[in-house]
């Protein structure tokens, strides 16, 4: 599709009107007066016969209105050599007199009256107009549908979906999605594994439409794609492994509330549009742009329901601690998305611990089972502390680091209990006999992460087991969300 060039305005006084506007009807005598004394061109948005006798131009195509940002009618412009130099919106005698240089306009009229909405910003027309006038901005291939072709069936057949229906990515919807970012549609965001395909802002926007995002969610999806496509997070390995992890997105900063995200009851449940569709859009980018599909490069034995999309915000307002993003060095109040290669959530139930020492031992006992109670050393986990558990640590004045240190200490185990064959279990760490008495850590130092979220009732926390971490595996990454 060829880009549409911005049509020029005629010089002189220019008026945009529509018949279906009482204020436009009201100012017809004024327009007649201006036409007598100045060069006036009238553009009529809904009926070229209106206003009668004033030779209005047909503006039912709305091209001038769209390209010159007409938001209300009547709008009066003064144009010199194709350049707008003055604008009056609605009827306002003083403004119209100043713009035209004609005194005593509309003597029988009230001093002012607001106008009506321009048809070029009518919500029912805007997507189609945007596609018509700005569709040339999009570089992606277009797929025409036959008259009786069902778009949902086509999208399933083309493998664009995660098994659930998606929103059809029309040009209008994709262009509206791109309004959510100031970044250029052709900017390459990342090379997405496993195909290492260059992924543009536009491709992320198309997938955000599929997923059901609103345009204001797009910057979070863009940041998440950037966060995983690097050697530190190692998206290739996370996607290709036979184990069952997927990128878990954790959002920090004021954008959580601006987007209406849910950090409270059912934080990990479906139902909140922002939580659900941001996570889903991200996964669809990996699928559609990266080319990763279960059974192909995605070799996970069991898979993971979270691959539909897992995204949640931290409850920073009620947290006893600094946000997760601060662990990566970001100032609190910065909008960020953090990615962690995590398993599905598993609940930790401890309804009796009222002091941190007891609760730490409970949490450690459950964290020990990640992957296998006899495995450790190179692993990661994300512990999401719930509000009622968090209160125990807050009341005792425990910092997040103190909690992590206490958990790592409680998780130390003698080599004799972890080695292969110990406890009658063949599985275990490949430890030499000399390490029988050594104290072995469960998690790689710095890779037990702690976040805070969940409903206010329930003495529970949640563990998301990790994957192999450190330079040999996948490490948590935090990226700033930019406009």
């Amino acid at each position, binding site marked *: 599709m060829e880009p549409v060039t911005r049509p020029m305005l005629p010089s002189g006084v220019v008026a945009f009107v529509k018949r279906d506007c009482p204020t436009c009807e009201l100012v017809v005598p004024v327009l007649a007066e201006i036409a007598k004394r100045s060069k006036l061109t009238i553009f009529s948005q809904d009926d070229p016969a209106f206003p009668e006798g004033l030779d209005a131009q047909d503006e039912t195509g709305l091209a001038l209105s769209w390209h010159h940002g007409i938001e209300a009618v009547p709008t009066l412009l003064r144009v010199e050599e194709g350049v707008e130099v003055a604008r009056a919106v609605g009827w306002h005698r003083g403004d119209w007199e100043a713009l035209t240089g004609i005194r005593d306009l509309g003597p029988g009229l009230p001093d002012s009256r607001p106008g009506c909405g321009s048809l070029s910003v009518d919500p*029912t027309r805007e*997507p*189609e107009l945007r596609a018509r006038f700005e569709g040339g901005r*999009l570089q*992606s*291939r*277009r*797929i*025409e*549908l036959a008259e009786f072709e069902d*778009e949902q069936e*086509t*999208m399933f057949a*083309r493998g*664009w979906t995660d098994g659930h229906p998606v929103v*059809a*990515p*029309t*040009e*209008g919807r*994709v262009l509206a999605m791109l309004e959510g970012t100031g970044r250029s549609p052709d900017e390459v965001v990342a090379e*997405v594994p496993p*195909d290492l*395909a*260059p*992924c543009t802002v536009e*491709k992320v926007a*198309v*997938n955000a*439409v*599929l997923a059901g995002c609103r345009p204001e969610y797009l910057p979070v999806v863009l940041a998440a794609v950037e966060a995983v496509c690097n*050697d530190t997070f*190692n998206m*290739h*390995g996370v996607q290709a*492994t036979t184990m069952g992890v997927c990128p878990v997105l954790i959002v920090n900063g004021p954008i959580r509330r601006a987007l209406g995200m849910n950090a409270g009851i059912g934080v990990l449940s479906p139902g909140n549009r922002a939580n659900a569709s941001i996570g889903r859009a991200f996964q*669809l980018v990996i699928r*559609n*742009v*990266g*080319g990763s599909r279960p059974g192909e490069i995605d070799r996970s034995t069991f898979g993971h329901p979270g691959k539909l999309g897992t995204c949640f915000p931290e409850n920073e307002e009620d947290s006893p601690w600094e946000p997760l993003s601060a662990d990566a060095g970001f100032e609190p109040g910065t909008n960020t998305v953090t990615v962690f290669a995590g398993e599905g959530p598993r609940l930790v139930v401890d309804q009796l611990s009222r002091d941190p020492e007891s609760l730490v031992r409970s949490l450690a006992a459950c964290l020990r089972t990640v992957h296998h109670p006899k495995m450790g050393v190179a692993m990661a986990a994300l512990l999401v502390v719930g509000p009622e558990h968090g209160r125990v640590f807050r009341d005792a004045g425990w910092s997040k680091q103190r909690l992590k240190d206490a958990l790592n200490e409680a998780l130390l185990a003698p080599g004799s209990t972890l080695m292969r064959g110990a406890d009658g279990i063949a599985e275990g760490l*490949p430890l030499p006999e000399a390490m029988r008495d050594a104290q072995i850590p469960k998690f790689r130092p710095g890779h037990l992460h702690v976040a805070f979220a969940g409903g206010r009732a329930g003495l529970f926390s949640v563990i998301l087991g990790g994957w*192999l971490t450190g*330079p*040999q*595996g*996948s490490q948590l990454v935090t990226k700033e969300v930019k406009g």
Partner: protein
Amino acid sequence: MSEVRTLVDPTSERSPTLRERVPRLASLEGRTVGLLDISKARGDVFLDQLEQGLRRRGAQVERYTKPTFTKPAPIDLRHEISVKCDAVVEALAD
């Protein structure tokens, strides 16, 4: 909203490239076979056995190791194998 008649493609729009396989070696005699250990546990045990068998059949053997099984082999390593070896065996294990 107008009726959906045109969709914007969400994919990378790439088409897979099909390449011919290198012909199978007629004999191992005097040929160089690369053995690539992807760094999974006990991959070396398997490759040690393979190396002995290949040497008995007259092949020269070059051993290579990926830094980690979780990531693709570095480009320099892939290039080195491609110019030094007539065939390659990539070893998984566990």
